[in-house]
């Protein structure tokens, strides 16, 4: 009896990993486990940093830069875009409808829920994409995805969500999980002649200088979007940020709102869940 029980214990111990792998296939997307590991990596690397401060990008990493930013925020360079965005947002289309007719809660205070996975179309919908789809559905020409009016409208929408914690959902839908995983793959994949991935700068080297710039941590990196960048001398959207990153490593950028860009936005935004929306922002 004792021997039989010992054999059963050994068999159970050997079978356990197999049973576990049947429940969660090896390599299957596991956003919750990723979230935990991602959060733990950054909080352990920067233990004295308040969690919500990660949403402030490079300013959370460098005291001198932070002081400059606090001074700049007295007269923020994105203010003109904010005013223009509010006006555009409230101006009716030719058919009399407005953006408020396209979004939940009339488009106010909803930035933290974008991007989301649309189970009808089976794709990731970003705020920028939703804005242009709203325009097209109402007979208006789409905006340029990278700056100007798109940056202005999304700046206003982000402003109405300021302080709200990011709340990105990944439904138990194999297509949503696949999109999430593709975004994660894009984030960690090296590209361009300089052979850099997004993670090379924003996971492996946040707080370090690359030339004169202080690298932002990947955690919360999109919370301040859209941003006014001094380097650009204008506002820019998330699309613009991704495209610039690609060309900085000598890679040819994808088209704005390419599926890969939307997926990586989905991945990064999910990683930022719980961190406050801080957009629109300004960056050097």
């Amino acid at each position, binding site marked *: 009896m004792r021997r039989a029980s010992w054999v059963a214990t050994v068999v159970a111990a050997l079978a356990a990993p197999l049973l576990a792998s049947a429940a969660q296939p090896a390599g299957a997307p596991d956003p919750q486990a990723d979230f935990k*590991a991602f959060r733990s990596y950054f909080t352990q690397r920067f233990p004295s940093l308040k969690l919500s401060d990660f949403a402030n990008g490079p300013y959370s990493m460098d005291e001198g830069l932070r002081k400059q930013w606090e001074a700049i925020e007295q007269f923020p360079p994105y203010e003109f875009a904010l005013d223009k965005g509010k006006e555009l947002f409230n101006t009716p289309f030719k058919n009399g409808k407005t953006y408020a007719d396209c979004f939940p809660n009339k488009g106010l205070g909803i930035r933290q829920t974008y991007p989301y996975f649309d189970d009808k179309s089976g794709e990731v919908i970003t705020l920028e994409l939703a804005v242009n789809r709203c325009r097209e559905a109402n007979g208006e020409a789409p905006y340029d995805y990278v700056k100007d009016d798109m940056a202005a409208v999304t700046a206003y929408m982000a402003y109405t969500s300021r302080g709200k914690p990011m709340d990105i959902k990944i439904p138990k839908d194999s297509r949503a999980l696949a999109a999430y995983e593709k975004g994660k793959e894009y984030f*960690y*994949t090296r*590209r361009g*002649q300089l052979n850099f991935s997004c993670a090379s700068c924003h*996971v492996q080297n946040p707080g370090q200088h690359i030339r004169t710039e202080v690298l932002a941590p990947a955690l919360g990196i999109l919370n301040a979007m859209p941003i006014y960048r001094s380097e650009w001398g204008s506002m820019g959207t998330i699309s613009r940020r991704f495209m610039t990153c690609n060309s900085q490593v000598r890679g040819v950028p994808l088209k704005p709102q390419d599926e890969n860009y939307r997926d990586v936005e989905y991945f990064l935004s999910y990683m930022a869940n719980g961190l406050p929306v801080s957009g629109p922002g300004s960056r050097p």
Partner: protein
Amino acid sequence: MHHRSLIAAAFVLSLGAAGPALSAGDEAAYKAALAAAENAEQQAGALKNQWTTTQQALTAAKKEAGTGDFDKATALAKQAEALANASIAQAKEQATDWKNADIR
């Protein structure tokens, strides 16, 4: 003297004859190099992994060909092909290697 004039004339004529023949040969080499480079760049595009430097080399090659300097144009086209092939190799390698950088 007459003999020397004939040799000189033949030499000049040979230069004239060899000139266009050499130039045509260079153009053919350039066209082959450009086709190979564009083919490789197209493959990199299918992998969504083109490099800006490849495109710069292709543009420069076409510009040199436009001025008739096919030697430079061919060299630049070959450089573009090498860059495109490197970007293809990078994409293939990264298809699995990205997982090594994943935070776990």
